[in-house]
């Protein structure tokens, strides 16, 4: 719907331009040609894939999240002109390159069974019970090749078959659950859900207990901090604001 004779798409385009606010297009020296879902665009070379998509006028309602390489929403699959290799990247963390043919994959359909942390036994059979398809792994390494985080996915799937929860947990620690591995797997394994399951089991049964946390919980239960809690809860809103502001001033500015 048009407001003040400016269309929605104009406003979107302007919002995309904000990425290079203060820079005149005439002053941009380096441009690249990319293709977004089959349509060609010329974009400034310094942009990330996500910025380039927005520069081209798209408003992202999916495939967009934290913009900081952490949430796994902006999984992008691409090929480069003249190459057959299929590559993957996180759109918010990767610069565009000339000849990129790209598409975004916002979602990977996969069921996520939840372990019963208290009841399920801490052994390899539990992983196979919830994810029997891991027995179908052919060690083709496609999952590893698909991972935008450069994780050794095949290795942690193999560790699951060996019942090594620790290796699964450590190997999958930096997984951002983008789902690309599961989409490309010929054995239809859902690597990232299996890994999360394993991490939860490992956290409960395998990893060393955090002694300081246990100590603190004990102190809390014994009421060591009760007085302090009561004091803070009794403060007025203005008193809280004063304390907070003073605290912030005392901190270093990052």
């Amino acid at each position, binding site marked *: 719907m048009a407001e003040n004779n400016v269309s929605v798409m104009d406003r979107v385009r302007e919002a995309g331009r904000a990425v290079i606010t203060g820079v005149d297009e005439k002053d941009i020296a380096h441009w690249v040609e990319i293709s977004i879902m089959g349509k060609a665009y010329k974009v400034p070379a310094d942009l990330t894939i996500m910025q380039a998509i927005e520069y081209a006028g798209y408003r992202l309602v999916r495939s967009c999240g934290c913009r900081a390489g952490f949430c796994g929403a902006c999984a992008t699959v691409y090929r480069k002109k003249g190459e057959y290799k299929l590559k993957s990247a996180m759109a918010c963390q990767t610069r565009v390159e000339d000849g990129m043919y790209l598409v975004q994959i916002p979602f990977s359909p996969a069921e996520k069974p939840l372990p019963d942390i208290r009841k399920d036994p801490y052994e390899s*059979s539990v992983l196979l*019970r919830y994810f029997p398809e891991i027995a179908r792994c052919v060690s083709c390494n496609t999952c590893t090749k698909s991972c935008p985080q450069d994780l050794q996915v095949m290795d942690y799937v193999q560790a699951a078959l060996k019942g090594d929860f620790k290796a699964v947990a450590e190997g999958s620690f930096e997984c951002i659950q983008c789902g690309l591995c599961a989409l490309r797997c010929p054995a239809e394994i859902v690597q990232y859900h299996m890994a999360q399951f394993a991490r939860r089991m490992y956290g409960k049964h395998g990893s060393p207990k955090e002694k300081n946390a246990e100590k603190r919980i004990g102190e809390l239960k014994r009421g060591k901090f009760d007085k302090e809690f009561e004091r803070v809860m009794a403060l007025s809103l203005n008193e809280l604001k004063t304390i907070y502001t003073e605290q912030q001033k005392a901190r270093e500015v990052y």
Partner: protein
Amino acid sequence: MIKKIAITSENVDFLEKISKLSDQVITKCDQCGTCSGSCPMVGEMDITPAQLMRMVLLGQEEVMDSKAMWICASCFACTVRCPRGLDVSRVAEALRQITLRQAVDHIDLNDIPDCEMKRLPQIALVSAGRKFTG
């Protein structure tokens, strides 16, 4: 029981397809029945290994409806004993793969009851996955 069949080019195509996939010269089979005699699973099968070979030889696609290929345990007893040097287990595999490659699995791994999943060793699931799922 006598069954009259006419061999058409479709039958020949089926025979050639299975021959190529199994890399066996199936026409060498002389129906001696040694494979059937050696098979440990023959008691469970609806048709014997020799009958399976016969149906493939005549290009009868109805062999795909039989259960025998799924009951095969890939033990290679037939393979080592066939006097014509045919690898019957590979013919069974070729027939299984025709179905599996159409994304039609023979078992659903999720159907295995929990009590079984707690007992079964990995090796059973890996090998069953290989032979019964595509």
